[in-house]
């Protein structure tokens, strides 16, 4: 199974979710800012990279974990990939899209825009880090649900 975590820019919530999924971060323990900054792609991808489905790693039960940013293209992306899989005979149950936008708080949004779009990293990054730490438990909960669903499929 390919698990694709997606959010607006593909550089904050989806990256955290992938890190939890791959056990790079403990699910029950809120990390610190440095732990988040150590995750590959965290607050580093530019808006030009939206749409790239990026491989992050393979979990303990052999699911491949990917991240992507899809801007405002949310529902359209789901429909687009669904149709593509039909065209190219990819079985729909071989990938799973997990939308993390409902768990993105206002600090992550504003900080993300400042850091990634406007280029004000000094102002945006602390804000996005603070927001990410606050959102951590909710993101972790989603990942745990995804992982337990995947385990049940075995």
């Amino acid at each position: 199974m390919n698990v694709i975590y997606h959010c607006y820019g593909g550089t904050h919530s989806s990256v955290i979710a992938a890190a939890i999924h791959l056990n790079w971060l403990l699910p029950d323990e809120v990390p610190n800012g440095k732990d988040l900054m150590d995750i590959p792609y965290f607050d580093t991808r530019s808006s030009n990279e939206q749409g790239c489905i990026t491989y992050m790693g393979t979990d303990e039960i052999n699911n491949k974990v990917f991240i992507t940013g899809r801007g405002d293209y949310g529902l359209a992306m789901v429909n687009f990939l669904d149709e593509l899989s039909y065209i190219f005979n990819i079985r729909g149950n071989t990938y799973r899209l997990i939308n993390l936008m409902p768990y993105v708080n206002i600090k992550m949004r504003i900080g993300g825009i400042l850091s990634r779009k406007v280029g004000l990293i000094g102002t945006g990054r602390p804000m996005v880090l603070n927001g990410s730490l606050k959102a951590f438990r909710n993101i972790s909960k989603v990942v745990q649900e995804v992982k337990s669903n995947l385990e049940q499929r075995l």
Partner: protein
Amino acid sequence: MKYIFYYSNSLFPYSGIVAAAHLGALKGEPPYIRDFVEKFFYRNEDSERTGRPYYAGTDLYNNHVYAVWNSGRSGMVYKLMLSFLEMYEIKKKNIFLVDTKLKDSILSILACKAYAKGFDRGGKLLAERVIQNNFSIISEVAGKSFNENLTKDVAYQIMLP
């Protein structure tokens, strides 16, 4: 057999119209509007169709022609498609992605909004004008993607408008 995907970063279904032109639906003199254009427009409640590639048909050379349009970040469709196919190790040799590079104008946005709100007559008039204004580009893009112009060379694809 090739897969040709026309895409446009627009609300207006430019790529759908280019795909239709590729299949010979837009021949002749103005007015260029035909009833087929209406099927490219969505009602507001028709969100299930948003972003879904539209299958325009099969051309004379047995190539499958698709169109996808959506306003969003430029290149999103291209990157999503390539990375998704890469994920499944699907060979891209016979897949052609053609950016129509047509952008929305006030008229084209109004045409979409009119259809979305159910004002089909107004939408059709506006769409007709948009197609007339862009007819030369539409036919040029479609013409460059006919079978005899397609090569397996990626560099050629970049040259396409």
